[in-house]
């Protein structure tokens, strides 16, 4: 199975959408399957959750069989949930479009999120 990447975006659109820096509260995800040249937009139903948006969004990633998530930042519960689900977390700087973030990920220019961030 090819690697599936999710990028947090401000609207459920195409790869020229600006990224949303949040994970759990991002309005939407763009799902990119490496090699398949196909982009699927997924509304984030957790964005209006009263609590636990990070954990709920992480569960949605697992439902979509996502391997890698690219976002601006991940909260502690989102981190714990995604780590338990075996999903990699990569952080991108602000102001990028989804395409730019994807290019940087592919060229190895993004940071992988590690537990040390919370210590």
């Amino acid at each position, binding site marked *: 199975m090819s690697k599936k990447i999710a990028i947090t975006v401000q609207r459920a659109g195409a790869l020229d959408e600006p990224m949303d820096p949040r994970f759990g509260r991002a309005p939407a995800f763009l799902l990119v399957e490496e090699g398949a040249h196909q982009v699927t937009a997924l509304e984030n139903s957790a964005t209006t959750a009263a609590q*636990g948006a990070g*954990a709920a969004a992480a*569960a949605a990633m697992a439902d979509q069989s996502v391997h890698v998530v690219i976002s601006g930042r991940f909260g502690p*519960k989102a981190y714990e949930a995604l780590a338990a689900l075996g999903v990699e977390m990569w952080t991108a700087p602000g102001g990028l479009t989804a395409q730019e973030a994807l290019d940087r990920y592919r060229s190895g220019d993004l940071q992988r999120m590690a537990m040390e961030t919370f210590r």
Partner: protein
Amino acid sequence: MKVVIASGKGGTGKTLIATNLAWMLAEGGVDTTYVDADVEAPNGHLFLHPTQVTTSRFASPLPTLIGPTCSGCGDCQRFCAFNAILATADKVLVFPELCHSCGGCLDACPDNALEELPRESGTLTVGEAGPIHFRSGHLDVGEPRSTPIIEALLEGTPDTGVVVVDAPPGTSCSAVAAVKGADQVVLVTEPTPFGLHDLELAVDLSRKLGCQPSVIVNRSDLGDAQVRNYLNAESIPVLAEIPFDRDLSSYYAEGVLAAPVHEPLRQALEKTVSKLLNGSIGGKAA
């Protein structure tokens, strides 16, 4: 009778009123219990100085994966309205701060793989402050949910006499937990735009919980007329008005119970006590 001292706005004088009201009631021979339900910042003990104190740890049930029977079906996760439980391929992850201890995930689990274990989140204190029975709760730092410990505090109060509840500020879940089941709700306010704004919310909360509130206006000689106009328009009874008094502020700052030594406060609370006890004001809907 359960009398809840609430406010909406913080810093209006809930604890001043609640502690001194409890003292006045007890002084008048009423069997009185004071409950400090402001569990995120309890301070009633600073004025009542309870003795013969016993403390106990408070715990709520938290679901925990117990055995190898979990099939990873995810029914627990789908059931949870609070996103507090996450099923992964090989384990169940519980976020304690998000869990409301409803036990629903245990019912939803077809594999009987979950069990509830106690998880501590605060401390309960019970003692005697002279003739006043004293109860207070203290939520642990970092704990987001105060309602369970407030409910536990109130569950243990006697059915006889008067229970004075010092409620947390605001109108969120913790204030609701303190006000629920009240026979009388006394809202302490101040005649300022901020006081009025939060008073309106607190009145709404009290009425939604089935109790017509009454009001004590603190620092009544400051501010403007908007609070009084509002109270008149809503026909909300005023139990007492307490003008600003530097001596009263000093007593409070020093942790001194003012009613025994401060005549104006004592007189204001005498009126309050008689109105509360003779049933001439609002209160719980029949």
